[in-house]
């Protein structure tokens, strides 16, 4: 089933970490397996934030040897950063396997990202000036407290509560997906993509990498491919409705935009609230009410509807 949520404040920052946590907790019944956030803070001047994982949560039960493996992987990642001339300004560990780096880097971040992911067991969750992508097993409350998200200030964000239907319960298959290696782009999705393998092979032939067997990752790769080729976010969303088969509603966030697309059957839910300074959307109205308890007007977008909002 899965639950998706998004919110964007126009022209100001807010406590999007706490707001998204409230929304995702209200959607917990739609997906208890894992929870993910893509939050957009104030863009760093010339600095990049990189979130990565160096092991799966389930690996931590495999005995003491995993600590050595993790330490070795971190050493390799930091070696690659040095090789590319990236300077680490700060480093934080929310969990032993999930790290957050703030970097200064003048070179090509796509090259850096590709090189880091050559390290076995390492996956970059996000890289960008504003994006911070956090996902782990458990509900929003668990993930929010483990990663200290309640104080996160930013302009917009998207989130996901996952009910695993077509791939495993692990972080690799959790949403949101970063549109690797395209900075600051993330995707959450509710639905099933029926031409996944055809589209995946097409994207792989074009040189894109897939880290999981989750159909939602295709949307991130597809969006990254379009954006890298100069297609606007709105046009990419519009094209996806005819090029991707299945039933889906998905949200895409960039450094300063938030977009949504709904399939031709409108088979997956989304409720929208729009005001002059805030746009909020979720699979169920109860999530919007979690941050806007007063009486508000909301509506369901129709089939093939595409919308993009500016922060």
């Amino acid at each position: 089933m899965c639950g998706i949520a998004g919110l964007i404040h126009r022209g100001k920052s807010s406590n999007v970490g706490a707001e998204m946590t409230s929304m995702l907790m209200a959607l917990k019944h739609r997906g208890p397996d894992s929870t993910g956030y893509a939050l957009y803070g104030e863009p760093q001047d010339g600095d990049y934030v990189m979130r990565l994982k160096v092991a799966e949560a389930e690996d931590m039960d495999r005995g003491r040897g995993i600590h050595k493996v993790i330490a070795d992987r971190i050493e390799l990642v930091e070696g690659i950063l040095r090789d590319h001339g990236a300077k680490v300004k700060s480093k934080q560990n929310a969990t032993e396997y999930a790290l957050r780096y703030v970097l200064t880097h003048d070179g090509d971040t796509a090259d850096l990202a590709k090189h880091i992911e050559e390290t076995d067991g390492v996956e970059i969750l996000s890289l960008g000036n504003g994006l911070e992508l956090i996902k782990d097993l458990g509900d929003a409350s668990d993930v929010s407290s483990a990663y200290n998200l309640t104080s996160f200030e930013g302009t917009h964000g998207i989130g996901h509560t996952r009910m695993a239907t077509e791939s495993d319960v692990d972080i690799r298959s959790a949403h949101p997906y970063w549109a690797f290696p395209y900075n600051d782009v993330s995707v959450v999705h509710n639905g099933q993509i029926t031409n996944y393998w055809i589209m995946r092979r097409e994207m792989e032939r074009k040189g894109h990498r897939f880290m999981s067997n989750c159909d939602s990752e295709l949307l991130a790769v597809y969006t990254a491919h379009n954006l890298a080729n100069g297609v606007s976010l709105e046009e990419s969303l519009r094209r996806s409705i005819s090029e991707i088969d299945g039933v889906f509603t998905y949200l895409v966030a960039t450094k300063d935009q938030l977009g949504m697309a709904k399939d031709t059957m409108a088979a997956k839910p989304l409720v929208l609230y729009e005001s002059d300074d805030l746009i909020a959307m979720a699979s169920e109205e109860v999530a919007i009410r979690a941050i806007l308890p007063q009486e508000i007007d909301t509506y369901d977008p129709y089939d093939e509807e595409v919308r993009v909002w500016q922060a």
Partner: protein
Amino acid sequence: MASVSDAELKKMSQDERVKALGMTTEQLTGKSLYIEFDPGAEERFIYPWAPVVDFNKRVELDTDKLTTREVNKKIRELMSEGYGTIVLQNPRGKHSLGVGILSKLNLIVEGSLGYFGVGLIDGPNVRINGRVGWSCGENMMAGTVVVEKNAGSTFGAAIRGGDLVCKGSVGSRTGIDMKGGTIIVGGDTGALSGFMMQRGRMVVCGNAGKNLGDSMYDGTIYVGGDIKSLGVDAVEKPLTDLDKAWLTRKLKQYELLPSKGVDHFKKIVAGKQLWNYDNLEPTEKKLIL
């Protein structure tokens, strides 16, 4: 089936009551669905175990801190205490509120409901001063539901009777599989509205999305605005004087009558090229009709 009085039914156990009403608890397969009709049997408009309520006895219930289950249980308790007008405050999009109310009641919702609001009802008059999520009024059998704002998809799915009204716009698949009753939409409706409709009437004052009335067996859809496309086997027929009179009366009743009247409405019915009710067995026909 012999006629049984309400007083006698009230004294019976659930099993005895089921048998006395001509229902059966055995596994229903094939032709065992057949029920004998007794033309002399008394018609029943209310359930014998329905609480006696007084519409002038009013109570407000703050649902903010209650779960769906607690709210629905409390509604039943209040009805058994004779409250005939219940106002739900602060529903905040909760799912499945007010479901399964099988007797007369004035239910007023001050706010918005989530999914499956007031589904499976048989008799109450409901006013929702907000919006509703997916599947509002699903399977309702009698009564009226009036939603003041917008509604989500599958509004009135499989409705069998009563009036279900949304003064705003609704999502997709409105009245999917409807088997009776009336659905009225003040604004627009989405794709596949009236899909596999079997009986009843649907009125859309605004525009309708693609595939309107797809695979409908029977029933009538009236649309005041544009239709993006008709579904398979849905055809347009001329609006008769009887249609106009009915539309005028119904829309006036819910203050949705357009200032220019109803002459511009289009009437959509089944072409009956795909399905035919007359293929049913006589015993099955008896049950449906």
